């Protein structure tokens, strides 16, 4: 092993740190492994933490070292990631990975056309937010490696996110990771592709070529690690150029399932301010919806960043829905329920759709070419929209499977 420095550290310490830890490793020439453990859970888990450190030291071939752990109740997946990083900061060419067992509850795949109303962003280096995120029932959880992670902690976030994908129960939410802007983001892939990521979010996307590069690298890794589950892409358009190229990007890969817009960067790019009314981004958003639909994929709206204002969030989602978007980004779990409610079809919409679908089914049964409801003829696209509303209402549990009988 190539040894760069004698001493390294990783993780977080201090009075405000919770559910995280800090490691320091100092290499010695003799004396074996000496552990200096300060943990708020020493009584309950001290022995298992010491054993874990010894196991990991052996795994990485550490023989003589002073190891300091300042622990504020970090869960095992966090302890392991912080330790591995401390070792890797000592030996930069170390390839070995200390992998905890894969949580079998996380072995699910997702479908291209499933509900994606809400996606909850979690900063990739803040594991304390991970464990309970799925309990708030978002459609997707995004572990973010990009803007929420400081440049000096990118290596930390990669390991935390990798371990989280393996250990943390997502409770059925779609497992998403936002990688760094390409080409840097390609380095993130080996941490996520082998660990059953469902969706890769591609930030600041500006060309089909970027998606092609990503796809090539993902395919390579899938082969290498024998990954069989589908991995979808969600390019995020965040610039004037990206908006112009939206259709090209949306149709760049069969693995694209959605196109999303990020308005903070976009408004900066066109030299304006983001407002609540959003008139400055109306072109971009309509362009994005149109490009996504033309490519046959979902259109997903930006995040709503005022976590204290649920009423404005609701209005914003209603507007998104009217423009043709099917999902909204969330940065706080309390936003999820509001987003789901606002995207849900209204009672009126459902009642109308029921009548149309029933009339259509009746006409089909009778072999009629034309569907009519009362004195009105119903065009095929109207039927199509009604079916969509019924499906959404079913998914939202607003109606039961037996709705035809009621």
């Amino acid at each position, binding site marked *: 092993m190539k040894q760069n420095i004698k001493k390294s550290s990783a993780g977080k310490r201090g009075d405000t740190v919770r*559910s995280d830890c800090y490691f320091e490793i100092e290499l010695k020439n003799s004396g074996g492994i000496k552990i200096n453990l300060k943990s708020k859970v020493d009584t*309950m888990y001290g022995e298992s933490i010491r054993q874990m450190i010894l196991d990991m030291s052996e795994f990485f071939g550490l023989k003589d070292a002073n190891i300091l752990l300042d622990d504020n109740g970090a*869960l095992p997946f966090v302890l392991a990631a912080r330790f591995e990083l401390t070792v890797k900061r000592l030996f930069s060419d170390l390839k070995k990975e200390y992998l905890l067992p894969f949580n079998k509850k996380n072995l699910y795949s997702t479908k291209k056309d499933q509900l994606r109303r809400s996606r909850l962003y979690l900063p990739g280096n803040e594991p304390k937010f991970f464990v309970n995120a799925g*309990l708030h029932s978002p459609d997707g959880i995004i572990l973010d490696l990009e803007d929420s992670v400081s440049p000096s902690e990118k290596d930390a976030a990669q390991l935390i996110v990798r371990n989280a994908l393996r250990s943390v129960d997502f409770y059925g939410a779609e497992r998403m990771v936002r990688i760094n802007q390409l080409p840097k983001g390609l380095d993130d892939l080996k941490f996520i592709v082998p660990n059953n990521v469902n969706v890769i979010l591609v930030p600041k996307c500006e060309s089909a070529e970027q998606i092609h590069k990503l796809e090539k690298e993902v395919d390579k890794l899938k082969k290498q690690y024998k990954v069989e589950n589908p991995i979808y892409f969600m390019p995020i358009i965040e610039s004037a150029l990206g908006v112009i190229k939206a259709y090209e990007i949306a149709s760049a890969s069969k693995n694209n399932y959605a196109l999303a817009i990020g308005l903070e960067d976009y408004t900066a790019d066109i030299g304006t301010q983001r407002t609540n009314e959003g008139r400055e981004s109306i072109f971009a958003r309509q362009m994005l919806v149109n490009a996504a639909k033309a490519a046959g994929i979902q259109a997903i709206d930006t995040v709503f960043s005022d976590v204290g204002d649920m009423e404005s969030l609701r209005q914003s989602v209603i507007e998104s829905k009217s423009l043709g978007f099917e999902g909204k980004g969330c940065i706080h*779990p309390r936003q999820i329920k509001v987003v789901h409610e606002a995207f849900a079809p209204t009672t009126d919409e459902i009642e109308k759709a029921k009548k149309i679908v029933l009339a259509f089914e009746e006409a089909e049964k009778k072999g009629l070419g034309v569907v009519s409801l009362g004195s009105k003829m119903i065009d095929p696209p109207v039927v199509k929209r009604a079916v969509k509303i019924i499906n959404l209402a079913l998914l939202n549990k607003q109606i039961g499977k037996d709705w035809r009988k009621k």
Partner: protein
Amino acid sequence: MKLVKNAAGRFVPKEVNGEVQIPFKGVDKYKPSRVKARSPIKSCIDYRSDGNKVLKDLKTALKKAGLKDGMTISTHHHLRNGDAVTNMLFDTIKAMGIKNIRWFPTASFPVHSHLIKYLEDGTIHHIEGSMNGPLGKFTSEGKMKGIGVLRSHGGRYQAIQDGEVHIDIAVILAPTADPFGNATGDRGKSACGLIGFALGDSEYADKVIIVTDNLIPFPCVPWQIQGNNVDFVVEVESLGDPKKIVSGTTEVTKSPDRLLIAEYVADFIEAAGIMKDGFSLQAGAGGTNLAFVLFLKEKMKAAGIKARFMRGGSTKYLVEMLEEGLTDYILDGQTFDLEGVRSMRENANHVNTSPFTSYNFHGKGNFASMVDTAVLGATEVDIKFNANVVTHSDGYLLHGIGGWQNCLYSKCTILAIPSFRDRIPVIVDRVTTLCGPGELIDVIITERGIAINPLRKDLLKAVKDSELPIKDIKQIKKEVDEICGGAPVKPKLNKEKVVAIVKWVDGTVLDSIYEKAK
């Protein structure tokens, strides 16, 4: 020390601080048949006929009260962490050279860590009441001379009436008082709401001293403590820091997980049919408890439902319910914020209550058992629904019981708790310290699901068709243990040395707290 196994399967001492103890015999299985404690006959001719009982300072009052070594002194926690007088009181006692005091507070706060030096030097022999934070740690480390006794608010009243604790001198802090000793907590610069926890002390103590920083001419009306029970009145510059008098736990939680728990609580109360016209509830402080009230409020408004009464500690959120007509009354045990204090002063339907009315085992009934639902917390619960509120999983004593044990008697007792804190599971095989028997705990609500006590078949039936995440408590425990990396190891305790005991509401000994092994 000789320990015996009580009806809950816990080992408890037969004698504590030289006094014989009765081991817990089961819920509602013990009632003493003696005569209640009495205080000596007093005659008004021994007091000034002009009603002026004001003395120049605390030392004079303590001297006149006949302070001696080994006496029992009671204080009250109405000023919470803002209390400056209890520390001053013991500074005075120390200066007078008095030793071996049994301190009998209704609760202690971190501010009282000042008293650790008096526990060390023998001024205070031991504490009967609560040992919070630093005082609890001190006790757990086996450093207190005597054995601590933990009681609920109701249990404290019971102990006074039983004669288990005879108070020699009660020192009652009063934000407003008159020279005769009539006193109230709802006004004055140190207003804290009510001072009802001192009621029993004022009636049963040999000597009663009122300490106030707002002495007004007779009469102080309405009074919460009656001057006819008071011996002396002392005026001081300040009772403490008013900013800390209101509790720190009166803001609604921002934690998404706690909010989820609170939402489940409100959903459960609705789904179980508890929320109906004329119902009642008890809500304590603490972020989760405040939040469930807000969720419930929306449900009540939507359904057009009104409660008959709500029990505090009150906060601005309960006050809003009262003022918006969602409840007829607040029956308040203590007041947690200034809005609560204002409401109590101005609104006749915001009624002050005491541990006598609410919690006392020797009352002819009490309010706690009349409440439809009480939402409480806990440090640990176990798979038999037993709960702990005084120690943590590492074995340290850190909290008092408060009114918690008494509230367990509500018709539906809900513990609203996170399933783990940092890496520490809250649901365990067996609680470190037993404070509440599982048969009185009906529902445990965590962010990972809701567990209903199998004894409550009615509740299980009531919510079986709801969308609520009802789970077996063992299932929740299993999930949490997986997250935390296995079940937590039990703390190493010195089972030879009991440092404190937990009393049940009837005065029997429910469990022992042991010294942390060195």
